């Protein structure tokens, strides 16, 4: 999985590419742990993400909980497959998907 990071003042954009699964989830977790301090707006761009397993959902949920305290989190460009996963698991109600 490739993570492309863009910082604009207090806004952080992470573009994810590839697969977010058991093997790659720790990478995203580590990235978020180190970059989230002071961030008020977190944008996750899932345009090039092929699929996501529960390991990814787990990180999304943890990050959503954290961002609700320090600002906001948006999820952009959710494809059909991943949208279905969000819908099935109720994440579409939790996340701000644009």
């Amino acid at each position: 999985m490739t993570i492309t990071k863009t910082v604009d003042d207090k806004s952080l954009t992470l573009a994810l590419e590839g697969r977010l699964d058991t093997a790659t989830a720790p990478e995203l977790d580590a990235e978020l742990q180190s970059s989230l301090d002071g961030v008020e707006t977190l944008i996750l761009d899932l345009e090039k993400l092929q699929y996501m397993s529960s390991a990814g959902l787990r990180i999304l949920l943890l990050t959503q909980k954290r961002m609700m305290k320090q600002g906001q989190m948006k999820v952009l460009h959710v494809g059909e497959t991943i949208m279905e996963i969000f819908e099935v698991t109720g994440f579409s109600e939790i996340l701000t998907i644009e």
Partner: protein
Amino acid sequence: MPRKHIKSIREMTKWERSRNSMAGRSFRVTMMGQAILGIVALIIGMGLYSYALMGQCIGEAFTLARSSAAIISDTMEPEKLAGAVMTLYHDMSPEELETVGTDAYRARFSYLENREDYQFLMAILQEFYRSSDVDDIYVAMYDRDTSAVVYIADPAEEEETGCSMGDWDRVSVKEVEKFLTWDGEGRVYNVSNTPQYGWLCTSGVPLTDAAGETVCFVMADIAMRDVVHGLASFLLQYVIALVIVIFLLTYILIARMKKTLVQPINDIAEAAQNYARDKKAGLSATDHFSALNIHSGDEIENLSLIMADMERDLTDFESNLTRVTAEKERIGTELALATRIQAHMLPNIFPAFPERTEFDIYASMTPAKEVGGDFYDFFLIDDDRLALVMADVSGKGVPAALFMMASKILVKNYAMSGLSPSKVLNAVNAQICANNREEMFVTVWLGILDIASGKLTAANAGHEYPVLKQPDGSFELVKDRHGFVIGGLAEARYSEYELQMAPGAKLFLYTDGVAEATDESEELFGTQRMLEALRSAEDGTPKEILQTVDAAVEAFVGEALQFDDLTMLCIHYIGKNATEGGTSVKEMTVEATVENIEAVTEFVNAELEALNCPLKAQMQIDVAIDELFGNIAHYAYHPETGPATVRVEVEQEPLAVIITFIDNGMPYDPLATEEPDVTLSAEERKIGGLGVFLVKKTMDDVSYEYKNGQNILRIRKNM
């Protein structure tokens, strides 16, 4: 029962060690013996001494009495004085006699004391009394009527023990008998214990008148107290001398014993202790016993020589043992290496041909000894032909293993050159017989499968019957024609035969280790039990079938030792057309780790791509693999790892993919977990349970079972 702890000599204090020293014990024994001897000698000595002293007393008393009697007889006439005294005595009444000792009594005799002969007698007696050790020397007469001794003259009259003239003492006839009847021969004496004088030795000699009548006696008394005193001092000196001599003798004895007996034994003991210490420290060559310098010429010297011999023998033995052990270790290492080389010679990575969907093959070998003589083999001769080999070399161990290697290579080389099975066996037999001085042989079953058509051409050189299951039947023995064993006869010719394997057919090959496995009561496992085991698992994969047979054999033999190798091979012929109708099965077994998720995903994706699976379905399956295999990797063997098998089955009409995840970890049914509530807000949502939930939502069917120690989770996705 716990053994009682016996104190080692090393744990004892010095005192404990010496408490029973030979010197101490000998000292006590010697002392006691000598003391007993001394006491016996003392008693004998005392007897002899007192006898001698008494004899001396008696002699002295007798001599005195006789000498004085002789003088008195020669110089005077004692009968006159004696007659006068006795007359006065006889004149007294018994009452007057009882007043003896009183002055009135003595006054009656006083006038006689002035007589010249009395004065003379007293002078003689006093002379003897003064000049000798005698206690008393006196003249007295015995009166038979009154049974009394009447004193006539006593020079000791002034002393306490002395008597005056006319005094009398009553005596018994017995006491005076020997004096009265003395015939002048030998010595006459009496020894008596009187309360008045103590132990007294009395001797008396009669004085006679001219007619030979006894008129009186000269009596000499010698008190025995000198004898007693002498005895006491003798005893004292004797005891002192005895004690000194005993101590001296014992000391010399012990000193000598210490030098000749105790010291050598202590030397040997010390040598033994040093020997043990050196042996513990790992020294092999020692000379503790050889260095002992004992020349006592007795059993102790013999002991020291024997110990020295033993030390040398043990040293030799040890060096031999070290050499033999090193040699054994070397052989052990080489055998282990040989076992590994042999194991690696057999194809043992499964799936063996992951790219071939037309068949599934599995084989296993469990050697009974370190290295065995069984082998199986399978290899592709070309894209269309698969060779299957099952063989068993006569004998066991290293020779069998060497022979097996040669046979395996020959069979493979000839088969790879494209020869038919019978020609391969002919060629191999010719080669082996050409150089077979040890007369070893090998049974071989060789089959070549035409993968496209399922036609199996096979030849059998004395090997067990193969077992075949056609798709519509059960496992049955194929009673093929046996040729002679390979290596037995150079002229042997092998024939071949054909079998048609329909898609779905399974062939099982084995060595006699299976049918001839024996239980504790020496009963054979037998072909019938083998067929039953095979039939019980006939719908399983080749691996499952082999595991079932293996488990059946193991359960049958129980604790009995396995004497033969257990080698089996099973092939499931699927056929080229399988993917167009019926079922295709592929599986892979990997270690259950997160790192292997990708490999499993790729393995499944390769199958899916061949089916032109829609991208969305493939993504959902990939997610399912990530969730389910991830679960196995994380939890099944935690904290260890173990194998996990992923099987992909493709069903036709309607097209569906079934993926089965199998692990041998702890029983866990992921479907039994509570489903997450997806309507909750972010703050209320729990982490976990999402993965399985996702799988359930995206797959068409999810099922779980726990069977034979395996977690089996099956998912189905319809295309």
